[in-house]
């Protein structure tokens, strides 16, 4: 039976929380309770399979995360999932600016809204935002997938170099560095698989696809 370790984060510093999380056994679930807007939690590599956080987190949550399934029952601050290496991060609230900035792998899903510069410098990870996002989503994106479920703000895909952005709904404005492309079967398949990871059933056909104008050019 899976072991569940509960850590009361009230009166614990970030490094103390991290130290206790690291002591969890492999294949266990760690549950964090009692904290509030603690920054820098949930990053790095640790043995536990799953990390559940029952309070909102501050900035840099799950930064440099590697391999763990992290579920945050609340909102997060800025740069959640920064430089994520692998694993999944599910945020049941909203996220601040620079969601999944420079994330290299893994999957970040926000079931609320996200701020500006969502997916900035994305370098291989998959990112999904169910509600509205701010401006400059996909800024300097190099690789990976950005899936936006309720439109996008201004300057979508500014300085985009690669990867793909899928948007359902209206786009405030499209940056000159990005272009709309035809949605192919492979795209709809990818969209439906990503949405299935957060329990949403969709065939993906109501999304539009955007790629970098530089793609394919040396």
């Amino acid at each position, binding site marked *: 039976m899976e072991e569940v370790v509960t850590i009361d984060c009230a009166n614990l510093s970030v490094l103390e929380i991290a130290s206790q999380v690291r002591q969890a056994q492999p294949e266990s679930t760690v549950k964090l309770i009692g904290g509030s807007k603690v920054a*820098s939690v949930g*990053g790095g590599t640790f043995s536990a399979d799953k990390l559940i956080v029952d309070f909102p987190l501050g900035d*840099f949550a799950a930064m*440099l995360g590697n391999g763990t399934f992290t579920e945050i029952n609340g909102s997060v601050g800025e740069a959640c999932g920064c430089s994520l290496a692998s694993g999944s991060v599910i945020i049941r609230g909203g996220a601040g600016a620079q969601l999944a*900035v420079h994330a290299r792998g893994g999957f970040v899903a926000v079931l609320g809204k996200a701020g500006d510069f969502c997916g900035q410098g994305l*370098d291989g990870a998959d990112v999904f935002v169910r509600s509205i996002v701010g401006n400059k989503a996909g800024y300097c994106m190099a690789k990976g997938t950005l899936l936006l479920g309720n439109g996008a703000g201004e300057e979508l895909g500014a300085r985009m170099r690669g990867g793909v952005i899928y948007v359902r709904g209206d786009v405030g404005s499209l940056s000159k560095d990005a272009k709309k492309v035809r949605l192919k079967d492979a795209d709809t398949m990818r969209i439906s698989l990503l949405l299935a990871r957060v329990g949403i059933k969709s065939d993906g056909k109501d999304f539009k696809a955007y790629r970098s104008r530089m793609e394919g050019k040396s």
Partner: protein
Amino acid sequence: MIYSESGVLDELFFHHAPMRRAGEASSEVTLQHEITARSGGGLILPGPLMLVNCPALEQSSVWMNSCAIMHQQQIAVFAPHEKMAGVQEGSTPMRIAQTFAGEPIDLEDIVTADAIVVNCWQRKTRNSRWPSEADARQLGSYLDAIRVASGGSVPVGVGFQVGVCEQDVASAIDAGVDFISVVSDERFVSIQHVVALRKVRAACLRAGLQDFVVLATLPAVTAEEMLKLVAVGASMVSVDAMLAPYVPAITDVGPRSSGLESALLHALEPQDGPVEIAMQRVAQELGNCTERLIDRMAEIGVNSLASLTEKNLRTSSTTLSKLLGIEML
């Protein structure tokens, strides 16, 4: 006074201790410097020297040799973890990982490092900025996130370019950095480098930090210059400028070349070819530098780097006297 490009350290002189018998004090001198990181982890600096950016020594044909030399001379090395792939563990006394503003962080790089520097400028453009994911108010959380990811005990410092303002240094100290790195790519040590070191020291003292590590990637060329920079405020000084005349010429073949080409090139080189001779000179130069540092510290009358301060200096310059608060000759 208008300083020539290489003149500012020439205006500083060490105040010597009373005469000692030759060889008497040398055995008491230690170049190691132990610090306790503010986050709780400990760090022993192997010495006052570090190798920061020397592509010629990092090329694949000489990298193992370079590591062996740095290990022998107890010189810390700035190198990414992928460079250490073929290097035996413990072959460098200290490996320092670097991150730059606007670039992703490699988890493997920081987990295996002995110390981490978060540089506040963009690598390509050299534009100064806080790490793009953070500004001054977020810096503490950013550094904590790096500490968490790296295991909690790796000292994390912030790197600034020379010309940094005191407010930025103070923000970094408030954010809880374990050390500060000051970097310049100028060709000669000038007054701005001395000013930068003093700014960092002044900010540390205002925060109540007496023993704070400052890494100085500055163009010191001789052991004497390195010691003067230590007295002014550096804890470690780079050897890049000193080694520049001795490092082997770039011989690496390009990235698209095959392994056969590089094997042939290596096979065609004579046993005591120019690369081997250059590496011997590098090792000799570093050895001479370390010996000179120890001898000089003994002459000055200090047993450790921590006890070498501006109080050991005198100057013939009014400007430096006011800047450093030291006596004039």
